[in-house]
């Protein structure tokens, strides 16, 4: 086993050295592709954080005036549940609102410490089957006692989605195109490696080396190139986060930002994407050499 690992290691390193320039092209393209891919994931994460922060994931928020009367809550809940457009109603107490707030802004301790939980209103959080039917809900709640304010959040969400979708889809698209070029470049390094060593491979086949014995070093070579690109992309993402997001923690408050944990969460995706691209590219690159 150790012998086999040593054999593959030697083959892979000598392969990378031999076509250094092409390998570098493959690595840098993978880097850019995976960087954009990670960026798209983080943007999605940021958008969902912003949505949670601003709307709590409901379409209609019914803020109740203080002090809250349990009978009013019950009466309003029943009324809302009686409407066919309402999917579900949830009562959020002041304490729950406070806990959600603290969790959301966990990265901004100053904010959490300085906000008095009493200032956060209790609310009924309403999900609708069809957000367009907000008018019906508003009409029913009109003039009911104990209500401070009714907010239709779906309109805000629509606008937010529209803006971020363009951005997210754009970045994903570019990263997809880059991933394809990375795959082509990796396939090319694999093919060049095979071509440079066709004599050696001929002899290997002649003395009875199995196909996988011959192919695996080339496959690993592609994976190593792609993983180096992935590693660089991950480091760069952390760098971007530290350079651009960290300063926001202090300045733009009342808005949660992606944390280190979020960046760590995209790491496995980048690694998996890199490895998959490398394997597919490697197999495509050696397709012509698959025959015995």
């Amino acid at each position: 086993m150790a012998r086999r690992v040593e054999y593959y290691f030697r083959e892979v390193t000598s392969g990378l050295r031999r076509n250094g320039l092409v390998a570098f092209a493959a690595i840098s393209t993978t880097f850019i592709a995976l960087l954009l891919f990670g960026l798209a994931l983080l943007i999605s994460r940021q958008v969902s954080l912003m949505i949670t922060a601003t709307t709590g994931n409901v379409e209609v928020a019914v803020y109740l005036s203080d002090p809250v009367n349990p009978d009013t809550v019950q009466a309003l809940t029943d009324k809302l549940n009686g409407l066919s457009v309402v999917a579900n109603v949830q009562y959020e107490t002041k304490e729950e609102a406070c806990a959600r707030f603290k969790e959301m802004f966990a990265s901004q301790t100053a904010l959490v410490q300085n906000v008095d939980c009493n200032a956060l209103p209790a609310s009924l959080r309403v999900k609708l089957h069809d957000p367009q039917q907000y008018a019906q809900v508003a009409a029913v709640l009109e003039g009911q006692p104990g209500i401070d304010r009714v907010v239709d959040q779906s309109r805000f969400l629509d606008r937010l989605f529209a803006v971020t979708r363009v951005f997210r889809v754009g970045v994903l698209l570019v990263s997809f195109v880059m991933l394809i070029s990375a795959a082509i470049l990796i396939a090319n390094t694999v093919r060049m490696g095979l071509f440079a060593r066709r004599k050696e491979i001929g002899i290997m086949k002649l003395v009875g080396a199995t196909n996988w014995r011959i192919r695996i070093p080339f496959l690993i070579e592609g994976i190593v190139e792609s993983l180096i690109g992935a590693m660089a992309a991950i480091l760069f993402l952390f760098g971007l986060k530290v350079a651009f997001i960290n300063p926001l923690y202090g300045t733009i408050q009342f808005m949660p930002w992606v944390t280190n944990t979020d960046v760590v969460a995209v790491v496995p995706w980048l690694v998996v994407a890199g490895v998959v691209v490398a394997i597919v590219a490697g197999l495509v690159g050696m397709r012509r050499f698959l025959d015995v």
Partner: protein
Amino acid sequence: MISLQHVTKVYKNGVVAVDDMTVDVEKGEFVFIVGPSGSGKSTVVRLLLKEEEVTKGQIFVAGKNLAKLTPWKVPYLRRNIGTVFQDFKLLPDKTVFDNVGFALEVIGKPKHVIDQRVPEILDLVGLGDKINNFPDELSGGEQQRVSMARACVNRPLVLLADEPTGNLDPTTSVDIMRLLDRVNRIGTTVVMATHDQAIVDAMRRRVIELDAGRVVRDQSRGVYS
């Protein structure tokens, strides 16, 4: 050991390289395949290695029907067949030791086996003192002996030699023939394709003569023509 039953090989371009060839080679036999260039000698070698598929007929090597051999089993067939070619097929950037050891390494033999067998076989072919030289530092005859060592280091049942003396002068050729004879005497079946008349006449072994892909003569203790 080797059996060809009505074997015909037609290449894609329509050339009939082997035409209805039926030959049986017993274990431990030494067989010359002779004939002019283009008579199908090399094709027979390629068919036995399953580098080419037969068009018609059946081939058995070491008890295995080649037509029924799945692609992933072909490497295991080839581990039973040593091969020697006219152009030696040595790797110029590897030493003599590594050229021979390579053959064992790529079939997954452990290092201690390689370290033991390679010097052993190189001694046997008379290159014990050239173990760390590179191929271009050796004469043609020495290079062919390295290639013989590589073919035999895994103790194959069959040795296929395709014009092994084609690039060598007569004296050196005799050395190579002595080696082949020795390999044969320890029980290896040897099949040698050649058009070297002097060697065939001197050895007096079984001769199969091909002409345009057909067997025109199969004679034990024969001469070239």
